């Protein structure tokens, strides 16, 4: 299976989704997305951190410093109430999008 890069909006969605289970720090987020997509989705650090900071600036996630499982200081991100709403909205748009695309694919003309 090939690995795929993520579109920016999609990355935001995946970050929010990952954080819906509780606060995590950047490295954990990247690892979780990779793991839960069964290694299909690869998150570049170069994309992850700008995305996190952008989302934080919107007020969807909040950051606080804490101690990681490795006993290291790390910046943890958690969903705000708005973030939860945003997650649902984005999930919905995404679902519509997927539904629309898959419908197009299903209805593609049959080869004769």
């Amino acid at each position, binding site marked *: 299976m090939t690995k795929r890069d993520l579109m920016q909006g999609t990355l935001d*969605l995946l970050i*929010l*989704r990952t954080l*819906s289970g509780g606060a995590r*720090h*950047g*490295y*954990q987020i990247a690892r979780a997305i990779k793991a839960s997509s069964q290694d299909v989705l690869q998150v*570049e*650090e*170069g994309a992850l*951190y*700008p*995305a996190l*900071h*952008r*989302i*934080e*600036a*919107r*007020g969807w996630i909040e950051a606080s410093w804490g101690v*990681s499982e*490795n006993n*290291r*200081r*790390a*910046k943890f991100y958690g969903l705000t109430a*708005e973030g*939860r*709403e*945003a*997650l*649902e*909205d*984005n*999930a*919905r748009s*995404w*679902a*519509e999008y*997927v*539904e629309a695309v*898959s*419908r197009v694919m*299903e*209805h593609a003309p049959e080869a004769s």
Partner: protein
Amino acid sequence: MNPGDREIDAEFAAHLAHRVDDLVAQGWDREEAEAKAREEFGDLQRLKAESRSARARGRKRFGRASRLDGVLHDLRFAARQLRRRPGFTATALATLAVGIGATVTIASLVKAVVLDPLPFDEPDRLVFVDMVTPEGARFSVSEPVFVDWERELRSFESITALVFRGATLRSPGQPRSITSANVSHRLLDVLGLEPFVGRGFTAEEDQAGQPARVAMISWESWRTDFGSDPSIVGSLLNLDGALHEVVGVMPERLGKMLTGTTPVFVPLGADPTLDREDHYLEVLARLADNTDEATASAELASLQLRISELHGVDLGWTTRLQPARARLIGPTVERAGWVLLAAAAVLLLMACVNVANLLMVRATTRETEMSLRQALGASRSRMTRQLFTESALMAAGGGLLGVLGAYTAVPLVRRLGAARIPRIDEAVVDTSALLIGLGVVGVVTLACGIAPIVQLRWRSAGPSIGTARRGASDPARRVRGALVSMQVAMTVVLLVGTGLLFRSFEALTSVDPGFRAEGTLALSINMPDDTWDWRARAQIVPEVMEAVQGLPGVTAVGATPVAPFSGGGLANFVAPLDRMPDRASDFTPVHWRTVTPGFFEAMGMEQLAGRAFRSDDGAGDASPVVIGRSLAERSWPGQDAIGRTLVWGDPAGSRMTVVGVVEDLRDVQLGETPPMIIYRPYRQIPWATMTMIVRYDGADPASIAAGIRPRIAEVVPGLPIGEVSSLTDNLHRAVAEPRFNLQILSGFALSGLLLGLVGLYGLTAYDVRKRVPEIGIRLSLGARPRSVMALVMKDRIWTTAAGIVVGVGVAVFAARRLEALLYEVEPLDPVTWATAIGLVVAASALATYVPARGAMAVQPSHALNADTD
């Protein structure tokens, strides 16, 4: 370096450290791991810059989202969803609009006709006070008895009597034949109304036997006949040749319920010295404070017993109170109102079921979307909220359309019922109707919205994304089956109800009224005392009739004071001389009319024995009479009535010889037993107001009608003539109420049948689509197309059968509620039931067969590609 940058540095450092930890844990050398981590991470400085600007951009672009935004967002999303499927949305909206429109329309109607209080003060305390004959029939009251009641009764705060009479209004304008009401002076007190302008009658003006020459006019007449003349009070009316001073205008609220279109009111001057046998007053009273009907009834009964014994009149008669509401609105109208409202509610329910069904189908096709969204963390409450928003938006849209529809429908329905249904002209879509509409929208939202939500719950507990659409166990489908069964059941109920009304209407309209209404014209003439005494009247009427008879196309002319279905009537008592009882109270109550020669012919009535009246009948001392069949049969059962003698009124009354027997007339209430009737020659009793019945042959009735008036004016200049109508109109009006009920209900039944069909069709079509893979496989394994079709239809046969069984159960209950509205049709009329059920079966078969046939057309190759919508 600013603090933000420092924080980013620290964060990146932490990331790298964790990565290194991982790599080391996988067995990497720490230094190599650090190098690899840094390499993976990319350009630190550039990343820092990007993060900084991302932060800035994010702040600029996004404010805080409010809760309202959430709702708006939901609404926009719902609207988008609805727009995306215009077919689905249009169907659902139209269905809801029909259901909601019907409900709001009928609710407006029922409110105006049934629910609104009578337009009088404390209307619950108003009662009609009636006499009751020994046979139990309601009867009017004589003037002396009314005077006794007025003087003695303490249970009533006030009591009044009224009687309607034909009269001639000579001024203002051309002489007109009108109806005037003679009322006792307390009429407005009893009703609790104030005159519009001026004053009501005083006790002095209502002196026994000498009513003052004063008049009041109706509000309606003031507006139309008197051009809203502000100086009307004090002006003079020439009524029957006598000048009457107008003292006031009746309040607008008096309306038409009690006094119809009567334009002029004069004092009654009830006279205690008049004949106690002459009953013609209608008595209306207001119960006193702290007095209930039972108390008043008891007082009245004991008083009346004393009066009867004292005078030896009305012996064996009783009295009865009837609430004004029951009399003026009528029990059948009220019952019909509720029946129609119930039918509208059933239709609404069917519409909801249909939409719920549609929504469930759609929810199924949206399962992928739902699964994905749920997987991506949309909470169940959030999705519920959003599904609900969609249902609410749709219900609101349907409600808006429905209310707009009601605005259009109410005036139409008003016109349909205008002929006979009291107060229907007051029906409007008002605030309360709109509130009902709003409430209905709420209920519809709940009713329709709940189905897909319940489905969502099942689904979320059930299979995952990949398998949801092919799930074999499908509780939603079972629910949909139940919903469609419900629709079938409701269709049965509506059809049975409509069928019963239809059969009843048919029976009623095929009742022989005893005369032929087709080919007749009717017009009233009025000969007031001041100009024509009884001798002159006896002269004029034959002259007028002869003149009209001479018009081309006219075949017969006759006259009577009581036009068919005019609601009026004269009553007295007779007994056969050979079996005459000792007391007048044991005489037989009869209707009677004075008629001219030619009357039976003009009416098209069948002569059963003897002869009709001749022009010399009633000239001498002899009193020849013609009687109706039932009176002949009652007086001389099994014998010939011709030549026998009847006694008029009491044992000392005049003796009358029966010269003819005619068929009975059912011209009071078409559906009731015809009254016993006796006809007396006009020459003997020349009534002042007569209705001429003109029978014509083939020719154009309009031109005949146009010719009558000038011809009469030629013969008797200045004779007041009323409007020309036709007996067909009267007959038509007599069945206006059942016709109205039938029209509305059959509209509902048709809509209901259509909704039921759509439901069944939709479900079957959906089944076929869902089972395409299965059908494809069966077909490729060699199943015959017909057996596949049967397979699909089998489920729906059970759906239909269950619906019919439930529907029959409910309809049995509903039909009993209809009983009061039925004429000569049993609630369990087998023809109706068989037809209704047969229709449902046939329609269901069609609605199932058409989509099921589609199953035969499935190509085996489609089996794997079935998830198309």
